[in-house]
């Protein structure tokens, strides 16, 4: 190896200036809605994802930035009809983050097995020295989840549960709730890859 990777540093509390400038209060032109991933020609089931980030003291993290990366409805990444990447902040008042996207299809694991539908999630915030990486799975995909090669790596059912967004019984766009716990009894499973 010739070179070493540039070390990470925290994104800090003002990450919005560079990543979601209108939220920081900068005057911008017509800013794209980075937390809305699907557009008119995108195939697939429209869904809404809501959640919050909880710290180890049970306090909501209200200055975080979250990015997601996912396949389209056919399980393909970076297709023409769907970029598959999105970004949101946790709300400065409520701590909630929201994405409007589609439910991804199944993708192949490196050994050819099928993975359950999932979305990759990255978390950047003050007090996070290097971004945290996790996955969001869906509560209404129980059969696929049981066969998922990543979820099968996790022995404790309580820890598997930290990766499963819960479908909320609500009229309108299907809503999934995904809470991320940085630390504590319900600490989310975070990945290295």
């Amino acid at each position, binding site marked *: 190896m010739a070179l070493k990777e*540039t070390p*990470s540093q925290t994104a800090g509390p003002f990450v919005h200036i560079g990543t979601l400038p209108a939220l920081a209060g900068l005057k911008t032109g017509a800013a794209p809605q980075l937390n809305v991933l699907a557009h008119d020609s995108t195939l697939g089931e429209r869904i809404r994802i809501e959640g919050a980030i909880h710290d180890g003291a049970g306090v909501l993290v209200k200055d975080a930035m979250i990015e997601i990366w996912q396949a389209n409805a056919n399980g393909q990444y970076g297709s023409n009809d769907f970029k598959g990447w999105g970004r949101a902040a946790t709300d*400065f008042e409520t701590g909630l983050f929201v994405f409007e996207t589609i439910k991804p299809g199944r993708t*192949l694991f490196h050994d050819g097995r099928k993975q359950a539908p999932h979305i990759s999630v990255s978390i*950047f915030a003050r*007090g*996070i020295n290097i971004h945290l990486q996790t996955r969001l799975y869906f509560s209404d995909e129980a059969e696929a989840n049981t066969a998922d090669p990543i979820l099968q790596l996790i022995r404790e059912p309580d820890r598997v549960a930290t990766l499963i967004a819960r479908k909320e019984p609500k009229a309108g766009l299907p809503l999934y709730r995904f809470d991320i716990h940085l*630390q504590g009894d319900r600490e989310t499973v*975070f990945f290295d890859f």
Partner: protein
Amino acid sequence: MSELGDFRPRDRAWHPAASTPAYRSTTFHSPRHPLLTLPQSIGELSGPVFGDSAFDPLDNDLIRNYATTGEAIGERITVHGTVQDENARPVPGALIEIWQANAGGKYRHVNDKYMAVLDPNFGGCGRVLSDAQGRYSFRTIRPGPYPFPNDGCGWRPSHIHLSIFGHAFVQRLVTQFYFEGDPLIGQCVIANTVTDPAALASLIAKLDMSAMQAFDSLAYRFDIVLRGRDATYFETQGL
């Protein structure tokens, strides 16, 4: 197995640990369980492409991109360097997002309560794509140091935040760089979350007189390295 080699594992000892008690905000923001290592599949090996995004010619000129009544106040600088992978290959088309405080150490952010004043002509937000040779540059003013609450009052050295996308999801990186010779670097609890002296040195931009613009701006060089693929597999294919 993928056709190209997988990306080498991230050297977690080179990066800051999740929990660095001197930087107080990590106390409740750091996971206690070890990270679970995943094999790299298509979702990790692919990544979003930003080359098609609409760029404004002033996106990489922070001296002028928020200016209304005049240019931004402060020490005018050009920051430039390369984006390479760990194999020293250029990474073209890397998106670099930039944010920073103004010359007085004040951020244009609704949550920044520091007493220093805003510069009406400075937003502190920019972005640039690396070119075909992996080079990038932007113009800005050197940000000022500022205080922040951390076990009393900590002071941040001058620094600029960068968010970087390479070609693969595994290459995602957010960091900050510092300026050569700044005595606050050694006292900064955030800079010193990086404990390997060589790693910290790699976050310090060097004064580069060869790139200064005469009677306009000084220049600093900061080279960026993203993760690289294990070359072993495809190199043997060429034998």
